[in-house]
């Protein structure tokens, strides 16, 4: 069977959607030569009318995409660096996202924002290592974090077809993942439907993005002693709350692993919602970046801020065996 890499999956999804719908066009810096590989070959295939190299003007071309969407196109914007989302938060969260409500339903804004390389890349330091998906989930922008090549294909295709703005975070930690599969089996994956990568009965690990692979490794390590279910929400807004509830009906224990800052992060939201509404027989745990982290340059420091397999393993064991409360520590 052919092997599909995560980046190639993103590339295929864009190409297939451009083939399917002439309204889809791509904006971004250096997309013509495809420096990130996600847009490889598209300029040659679809021409400069549909694959547009832009000047380094994120705010203008993100606003442009909103206008083009209002005029009937379905732009996909590629951002080279996740932190550029901070520059264009206005154009996404405050403009594109709000048009449907503010116009009383007169319009929708179908723009896809693709981040091929979100989160820590080996020692790319403070301004290139953010993973700001929680910000978008917080404001209610559809937010997607695929973990595998087939999900990257399926979720990106769905994002492009969606009539609302969707931000697609492709974690750099997942870009190297490859999958054996039949290309004919690549299909759109709906937003808001999680995926159980491994069934288990003792504890549910909710893993976001590339951390799915770490969660699977930890589950394997613990296989003799603890039965771990690995639940990948795939999209963070909408979130598959019923899928999580069903998993917790089986396991009753929850650990969340999320490569974003702890305070007000998606991990906190998952734990809080489970505590309010779902079956838990033990206190939930979360493994995240520290509060208020900015990833430092030196490799050891960078890694010290990211969730590790060892932390996840400890959290799983604590969830299953009970753990000392803070006051007792």
């Amino acid at each position, binding site marked *: 069977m052919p092997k599909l890499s995560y980046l190639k999956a993103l590339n295929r999804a864009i190409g297939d959607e451009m083939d399917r719908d002439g309204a889809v066009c791509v904006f971004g810096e250096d997309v013509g030569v495809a420096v990130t590989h996600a847009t490889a070959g598209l300029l040659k295939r679809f021409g400069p009318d549909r694959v547009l190299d832009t000047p380094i003007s994120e705010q*203008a*071309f993100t606003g442009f*995409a909103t*206008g083009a969407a209002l*005029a009937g196109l379905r732009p996909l914007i590629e951002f080279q660096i996740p932190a550029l989302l901070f520059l264009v938060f206005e154009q996404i969260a405050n403009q594109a996202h709000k048009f449907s*409500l503010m*116009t*009383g*339903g007169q319009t929708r804004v179908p723009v896809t924002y693709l981040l091929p390389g979100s989160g820590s890349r080996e020692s790319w330091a403070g301004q290139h290592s953010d993973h700001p998906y929680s910000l978008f989930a917080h404001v209610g922008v559809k937010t997607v974090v695929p973990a595998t090549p087939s999900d990257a294909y399926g979720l990106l295709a769905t994002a492009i077809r969606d009539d*609302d703005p969707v931000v697609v975070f492709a974690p750099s930690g997942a870009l190297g993942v490859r999958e054996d599969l039949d290309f004919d089996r690549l299909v759109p994956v709906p937003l808001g439907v999680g995926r159980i990568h491994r069934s288990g009965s003792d504890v549910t690990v909710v893993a976001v993005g590339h951390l799915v692979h770490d969660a699977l490794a930890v589950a394997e390590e613990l296989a003799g002693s603890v039965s771990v279910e690995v639940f990948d929400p795939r999209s963070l807004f909408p979130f598959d709350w019923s899928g999580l509830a069903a998993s917790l009906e089986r396991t009753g224990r929850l650990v969340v692993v999320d490569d974003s800052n702890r305070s007000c992060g998606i991990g906190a939201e998952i734990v809080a919602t489970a505590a309010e509404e779902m079956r838990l027989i033990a206190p939930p745990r979360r493994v995240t970046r520290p509060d208020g982290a900015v990833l430092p340059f030196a490799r050891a420091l960078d890694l010290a801020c990211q969730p590790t397999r060892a932390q996840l393993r400890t959290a799983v064991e604590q969830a299953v065996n009970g753990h000392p409360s803070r006051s007792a520590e």
Partner: protein
Amino acid sequence: MADVPSAALYRTVALIRGFEQRAIELVRSGVVLGGIHPYTGQEAIAAGTCAVLRPEDVITSTHRGHGHVLAKGADPARMMAELAGRTTGLNQGRGGSMHAADFGVGVLGANAIVGAGVPIAAGAAWAFRRAGSDRVAVGYFGDGAVSQGVVLETFNLAALWRVPVVLVCENNGFATSMRTADTVAGSILGRAAAFGIPARAVDGTDPEAVLDATAEAVARARAGGGPTLLECTTYRFDAHHTWEHTARPRYRTDAEVAAGRTRDPLEIQGARIPAAARAAIDAELGSLLDHAVRYARTGPHPDPATALDHLYATGLRGRAGAR
């Protein structure tokens, strides 16, 4: 220019003036909440620019947007109902004064973030040209907006890609309390020159001067000549926002305002048509606006259960403490 009658331009100016007078009364009486940014004194710009546009051309507007929205052809009654937050409003009461939109007549929305509508207009115009049509877009913005990075980034993109957009700067002398000279280094026209965008200074108190300049800019855009910047000089007669009448910040003298008011678009255009024609238009607008006020006051208020309609959201249910 000759094909837009002077009387039609007068009617648009008078419609905007009359609409806003009534809107201000409704702010004072508590029917319109949140207040408005009056356009009084600047009507020549909306009237002159929109007179050139076809129904299928589009505009993006600003926080001071009533004039643009009305001049482009939105129904004054539905616009007033929008200000009053009724379901009968243009945006079903979801937008209000600063977000009034009417896609049916090409109004892609007023915008409450200074400068934010400019890239949106340019993006729409780019899409039109790409589709092979000769539709154009107008992006309105104030003198304050030329200090926004996104506006200057858009100048660059629009010029680079020969986008059929008319960039209309309404220089009313102030950004809230700040004088243009205190916020704009160099000149506004000079910004266009830096990007190779043809630009013109326009008397923004004279509807026919605005119309002439816009006609030239729109013709260039339709012919594939790219963007044009029009710097329309005008004066804001009234407050920055109706809140100002209570806060009374002092940033200009009464004498200065009185001097500014001597160039009144309503009088300039009114003097160009016979007195009887002017009186007939005034009478027609009087009853039209009376109807708009009645329509706005009597429209239904939205049902709170629909607060998140039109948005992708999880909904109002399911929050702790909600029933």
